[in-house]
């Protein structure tokens, strides 16, 4: 009998054809307090070390700001977390169970990591509301997508989000016709309807007015707690207005970590930002 079971196990279609196997969807486990573990990561492009022994932990519900000069490895770090770039060595875990290095980009997104890009990329040919509908948390396989219909709860959720990002009037406009700031908001909206556990936000306030910046700051701080948020930003005023804990990256590794005041008075950080003097 065991033999039969063995054979059956071996010829189960997801064992024979590896690609038929369902994606390994493990539950997100944050019982140890951390939602993101990055340990000893290394990436190099053509001999240039973009990430150099980077180790960093993000706690569940935390709002973390990451700053650093150009080329410090901020975007590359995000690329690793979202599966776009594979590190040469190191470990990256989402919760204590999900190994990010084994997953593809869509799997990572489905596991609950959302990303807003530095350059706003929305689907310009589609309407604003379609952009949100596509990003909406739901079954994203082919057949369910073909037959998908918005339930009234989902409809309401999208309406609420439209209200929140201030694009209610533009809901049936093509996303390509929006202003730069509106595209930023739309992308934030897409991030929200994805309902991720961890939000990676790359330069959210570039091209925004001061009022919009304040609203963004308000939004991000309100998200923290329920979600974990990692913000990469150059605008120091903005960082100061939201930051509880700041990490400074330099040459691919962590230079300093702490509250905004601590970081700002750190001698090494000053050197990096003001030049080696």
């Amino acid at each position: 009998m065991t033999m039969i079971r063995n054979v059956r196990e071996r010829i189960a279609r997801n064992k024979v054809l590896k690609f038929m196997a369902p994606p390994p969807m493990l539950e997100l486990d944050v019982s140890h307090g951390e939602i993101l573990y990055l340990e000893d990561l290394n990436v190099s492009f053509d001999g240039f070390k973009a990430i150099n022994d980077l180790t960093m932990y993000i706690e569940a519900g935390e709002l973390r700001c990451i700053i650093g000069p150009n080329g410090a490895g901020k975007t590359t770090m995000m690329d690793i977390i979202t599966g776009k770039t594979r590190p040469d060595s190191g470990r990256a875990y989402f919760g204590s169970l999900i190994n990010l290095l084994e997953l593809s980009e869509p799997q990572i997104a489905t596991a609950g990591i959302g990303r807003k890009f530095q350059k706003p990329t929305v689907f310009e040919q589609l309407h604003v509301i379609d952009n949100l509908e596509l990003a909406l948390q739901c079954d994203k396989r082919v057949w369910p997508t073909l037959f998908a219909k918005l339930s009234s709860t989902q409809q309401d959720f999208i309406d609420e989000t439209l209200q929140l990002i201030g694009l209610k009037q533009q809901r049936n406009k093509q996303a390509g016709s929006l202003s730069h700031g509106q595209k930023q908001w739309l992308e934030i909206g897409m991030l929200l309807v994805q309902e991720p556990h961890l939000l990676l936000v790359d330069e959210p306030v570039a091209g925004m007015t001061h009022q919009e910046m304040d609203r963004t700051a308000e939004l991000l701080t309100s998200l923290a707690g329920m979600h974990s948020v990692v913000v990469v930003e150059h605008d120091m005023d903005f960082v100061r207005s939201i930051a509880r804990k700041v990490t400074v990256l330099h040459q691919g590794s962590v230079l300093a970590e702490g509250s905004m005041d601590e970081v700002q008075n750190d001698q090494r950080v000053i050197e990096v930002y003001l030049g080696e003097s």
Partner: protein
Amino acid sequence: MGVFRILKDDRGGQMLLLFLSIITVLIPLLHLLVPESSPFHVTTYGITLFGKYLTYALLAVAVDLVWGYLGILSLGHGAFFALGGYAMGMYLMRQVGDRGVYGDPLLPDFMVFLDWKELPWFWLGFDMFWFAMLMVALIPGVLAFIFGWLTFRSRVTGVYLSIMTQALTYALLLAFFRNEMGFGGNNGLTDFKDILGFNLQDDTTRIALFIASAVALAFGYLVCRWIVSSKLGRVTVAIRDAEDRTRFIGYRVEYFKLWVFTVSAVLAGIAGALYVPQVGIINPGEFSPLNSIEIVIWVAIGGRYTLYGAVIGALLVNYAKTLLTGIMPDAWLFALGGMFILITLFLPHGIAGLFRREKQA
């Protein structure tokens, strides 16, 4: 009803279906009832020609589905068309039975000529219509699936993918030229007698094939329209415009591409299957890269990203081709080449794009 829901916001599609219903009634009537002396009489040749155009239009719709809505510029759809055609050709060949030149009850003429003794295994079953029709859809579909599986998963995109598709049809062209392949080599399959027991030369058979082509085009159009107006259609457009971004919101881009590409290949196969009994021959020339790229120009002229535009393009270009090759055979390739350049430079949205611009203005 489903059809109405699919066409709700689609003026072009409504017009197209109306047009198809009218011609399926009108053209047979003009042929049967109007006397031959009248200028309104449609000849048998005319019906067959129009039927051929309709199969081309279906092929164009299939190409537009992947190019206009998914961003895959396939330079190899002629291969799927030809494979569907070969599957149909094999059925028609088996129907000839012992009426061939050599009178062999089982083997087609070219096999007797090559001194083959047995029917190759891959010709078995093609004497049954249902089996052949299954293969018409299955062979292009499976090939597209395998090809797509290999290329999409390794994220071959854009121009690389286009050249891969061209290489695919080129490889098939070389393969089908070989006699050993068992598909009639250079000459292909021809000298068909009848389909489902009806003589292919009969007027009524030709009218029936014409109507079948119109119905297939309508069906193909509706399938594509259904896909592109669903959420899946919006995902494909998202993939077309920002593939990486679509991945980051959780869609497995490869699978979407794979399924849409396969559906498109199946439609192309169906078009090929309807094409063959109307023109009476299928040979390896159908695999030539030039054929595949001509389809692209139909779509480009009609206007990609509008399915009805693809139909307009296919009908117009082929009508022009028939006219021009009749008057000045040498000029056709110049005209075709010129069209490629002018359309891409000056009319990137094609004829349908002109309509749309007027509407917006």
